[in-house]
């Protein structure tokens, strides 16, 4: 399965819906998408990972890169994920402390802290 990406604006947030597999082959597409959004002045991102079947460290690296980019503009990058096998990778690498992880897009969009 390949990677699917779609974006939509919700208030002042931009929701990036990701589906499929994020790995060493597909991660560059996600990186391009995040870079493009930041270049367009979209600094408050919500990455919805509910449709992600597979995530590896390359994908984590891209998300960390995205976080660094939005933070350079005082922005935010929030994740939406309820899948245990994906959450486990964030826990193993200690990244649960770095990313705000929400259970729903509504929750992530409403979050302000």
């Amino acid at each position, binding site marked *: 399965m390949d990677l699917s990406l779609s974006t939509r604006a919700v208030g002042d947030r931009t929701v990036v819906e990701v589906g499929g597999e994020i*790995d*060493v082959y597909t991660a560059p597409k996600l990186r391009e998408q995040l870079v493009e959004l930041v270049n367009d002045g979209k600094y408050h991102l919500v990455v919805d990972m509910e449709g992600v079947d597979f995530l*590896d460290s390359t994908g*984590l*690296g891209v998300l960390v*890169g995205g976080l660094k980019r939005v933070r350079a503009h005082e922005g935010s990058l929030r994740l939406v994920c309820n899948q245990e096998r994906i959450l486990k990778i964030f826990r*193993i690498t200690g990244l649960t402390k770095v990313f705000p992880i929400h259970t729903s897009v509504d929750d992530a969009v409403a979050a302000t802290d």
Partner: protein
Amino acid sequence: MATVELRFSALPEHVRTARLVAAAVARRAGVDESVLDEVRLAVGEACSRAVGLHQRGGIGGAVRVALTDQEKRFLIEVEDEAGLDAVPAAGAAEGGEADEDTLGLAVITGLVEDLEVTNGASGGVIRMSWPVSVASVAV
């Protein structure tokens, strides 16, 4: 001799194939269903790292994945042909290659209890193994 052996050109697009093959062979060997996600992820990480080393070293060559059904363990070896020069030094520039390499190894270390990583002049090997549930060996 390995039960199944796979060699692929060190390119990102082939890593998914290696994951799928490894998971299928592991299932058949009797590795518990609950662990197959870990096997898939660990093999993917090891192969991604190998591909990265080849690309950073600017060399072609192949990545070899050997899947061996031992009696009580399922052994996976991922071997690259990149030399020591391609292995990023720890503490290299933040956000750079060392970070990606470190993150990949962190995932593997967190997932796999029985793990050995070696780097040699002619390439490195990641060896990892998982227990096989004897009662559930596929017919």
